[in-house]
C-alpha cells in the first residue's frame, strides 16, 4: 500500500467518525421525548432530502454525464412505480437503472 493513499483513507475515516462520535456523546444527554430530539429528527430528514436532491439535480461523477431532464423523469417514474407496487423498493431501484441507461443511450 502506498503511504499517501493509506493516510488519505485514515484521514477520511477519522473525519467521518468524528460526526458519529460527537453524535453519540450528545445523545447521552438527550431523551427521545424531548423537544431537541424532535428538532434533530427534523434536521436529519431534511438534510438527507437536501443531499439526495442535490445529487440528482447537481450531480458529480458519472451522473453528471446524463441530462438533468432525463434524471428527473427517471426519479418521477421510480416514485410512481414505488406507489404502484405498494411500496416495494426493489422494482423502482432496478427499473431506475435500466430506464436511465436506456434513455441516456438514445437521447443522452
Amino acid at each position, binding site marked *: 500500500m502506498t503511504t499517501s493513499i493509506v493516510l488519505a483513507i485514515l484521514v477520511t475515516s477519522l473525519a467521518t467518525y468524528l460526526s458519529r462520535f460527537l453524535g453519540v456523546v*450528545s445523545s447521552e444527554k438527550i*431523551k427521545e421525548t424531548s423537544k431537541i430530539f424532535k428538532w434533530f429528527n427534523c434536521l436529519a430528514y*431534511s438534510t438527507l432530502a*437536501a*443531499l*439526495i436532491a442535490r*445529487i440528482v439535480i447537481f450531480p458529480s461523477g458519472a451522473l453528471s454525464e446524463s441530462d438533468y431532464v432525463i434524471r428527473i423523469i427517471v426519479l418521477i417514474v*421510480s*416514485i410512481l412505480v414505488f406507489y404502484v407496487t405498494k411500496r416495494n423498493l426493489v422494482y423502482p431501484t432496478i427499473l431506475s437503472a435500466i430506464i436511465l441507461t436506456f434513455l441516456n443511450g438514445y437521447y443522452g
Partner: protein
Amino acid sequence: MINSKHFFQGFSSIRKIDSPAIALGCCFIAIGVLLKNLGFSIQESIFSTLLTYALPGSLVMAESLLVGASLLNIFIAVWLVNARLYPMTVSLMPLLMHESQPRWKYYLSCHFIAVSAWLIMKSNYQSVEKENRIDYWIGIGTATWSVAIIGTIIGFISSEYLNKDIMIGLAIVNPVYFMCMMIGAMKTIQISISVILGAILGPAFYFISPEWCVLYGGFVAGTIAYFIGEKK
C-alpha cells in the same frame, strides 16, 4: 455480550422487501470502480470502505486525491460533507440507549450510521423492545457494512467490464432508493415537511454556496418543519 437472536433479526433486514442491499451494493460497486481507476490496490479499496463506510465521504476523498489536495484539506472537505451524520446520530441513538447495555456498544456501532442502515432502523425500531434495540442495530449495521465491502470488491474486480452507460445507471439507484425510503417515512407532518422542504432548499442553496448547500438547506428546512409541527 451481544444477543444473537436480536442481532440476526437485524441482520436479516437486508433480505426484506425494503432491503437496502441492492441500492447499497450498486453504489459501492461504483466506488470500487472509481478507486481502482484512481490507482488504489484492492486492499486499499477494501480498507477505505471498511473504515469510512459513508459514500459521499469516499467520493470527496477520491476527488481530493485527484486534484492533489493536502491531508488537511481532505479532512475538512470530508468532515463537511459527512457532517449530516451528526443530526442522524443524535436522532437515532437516544432511541437505542438503555441503561442495561454497555456504552462501548454505542461508541463502536455508531460507525454503522449511514443513510441505508439509519432509514431501516428508523422504520423498524418500534417493533423491538428498547433494551434489545442496540443488538438489532448492530445486526443491521453488520449486514449493510458487509454488503458495502462486497460491492467494493465486485466493482474493483469488474471495472473493465462496466462501461460509461452502466456506471450512470448504477449511480441513479442510490438516490432513487433513498428518495423512496424517505417518502415511505413521511408519516408525521414534521417529517413530511422536513423531506419536502429539504429537497427544495438543498438544491436552491446551491446557487449561494455549492459546498454548504446541503447543510444550509437541511438546517433551514428542518428548523421550519420543527416549528410548523410544534404549532399544530
